[in-house]
């Protein structure tokens, strides 16, 4: 299982800052996260199952696309993108 780290609003909704979640790639992992923690449903993936536009996912500190592979013990972070203006 990968280790998912959550902060801010997501941490509050999940009730934990760190969770162990199964998934072969980023999308599968996020689907699993929403399944196991229904309070997060719709916050990271929209109804189509698409990663929301201004959410960034990092795997072991590197930006990762939705189809990026996830390995056992990988550290996943889900963060709002930089915004301003």
């Amino acid at each position, binding site marked *: 299982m990968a280790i998912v780290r959550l902060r801010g609003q997501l941490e509050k909704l999940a009730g934990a800052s760190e969770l162990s979640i199964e998934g072969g790639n980023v999308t599968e992992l996020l689907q699993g996260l929403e399944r196991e923690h229904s309070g997060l449903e719709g*916050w990271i993936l*929209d*109804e*189509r*199952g698409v990663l*929301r*536009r*201004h*959410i960034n996912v990092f795997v072991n500190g590197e930006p990762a696309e939705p189809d990026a592979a996830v390995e056992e013990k990988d550290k996943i972070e889900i963060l709002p993108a930089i*915004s301003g203006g």
Partner: protein
Amino acid sequence: MTELLVGTRKGLFVLEGEPGAEFQVAGRAFVGEPVDYAVREPRSGRIFAAVTSPFWGPRIWFTEDAPAAGDWQSARGVALPKGGKDALKRVWVIAAGEADGLLYAGGDPGVLFESRDGGETWALNQALWEHPTRPRWRRDSGGLSVHSIAPWPGAPDRLALAISAAGVWLTDDGGATWSHGNEGIVADYLPEQARASAIDLCVHHLERAPKRPERLFLQFHGGVYRSDDAGRSWTDIAAGLPHDFGFPVVLDPADPDSAFVIPVTTEDRVTDGSVVVWETRDAGATWMPRDRGLPQQNAWLSVLRQAFAATGEGPELELYFGATSGEIFGSGDAGASWFGVATRLPAIASLRAG
């Protein structure tokens, strides 16, 4: 004391004050996030806010408390069916229905949600979502939005909606079936041959006269219209206005012959250097300018469709409108005179008064 709930591009502002003087900011919520609409539901006293987080998507929030207290809960079920090709983009309006606990919310892409438990859980209206004409509905620059919801006083199953750009929709069976109410509306942005069968009608705002529910007023994308047959057919009443373009329309609940509009130029969608609210008291036969106290020079304001509201009625009617420039103007005497309510707020998307 009058309360204004002001949705801005940078959060919800709650203003309080008495007509005639500047209002005070009594509270803020959703700081930094776009609040597209906020309203206090009159029966429960709950405040609802439609917030489109750039990160986490669109959501309806509600609170029992003073909004500044910040104890907001996220409503459940405000989403499209999972696994489809569409995602909810924005919630444009929230309105109380006629049955106890019944609320409606309209959004983009052209969707209506219903709640029967006072706004905690919501369900998509399937008949509108699956309407066979949906492929012919057209997005305008603001999206494909259900932005106007007009219940029929005392008749919970009767409802009118306006969709930009898909015209007026009517139901007499609580949303089980929907029919068009577009007869008489002329879309001069379409070729003449296409107008008769047009479905992509860009209604900007629709309001029902509560004392005479079969009467509705409508601000169109070029035209102001009145219906006297519950929205089935429409008569153009824009003659006498300086421009037939505009976004909001507001009524005096006591007077079914009344309507207030804020005309803007067709070219740039702002007031033409002076700000004038136009009022009719004869159902659109004549219009009177109401500009005492409003800026008459160097004023090019953009007032969006949800940013003009009324509270009270008759001689006690109070009117308020906010602009994308962050200014709010109000009237405590049914539009006869106006005063400055607030300045230097973020761009105003919506304003409700109570």
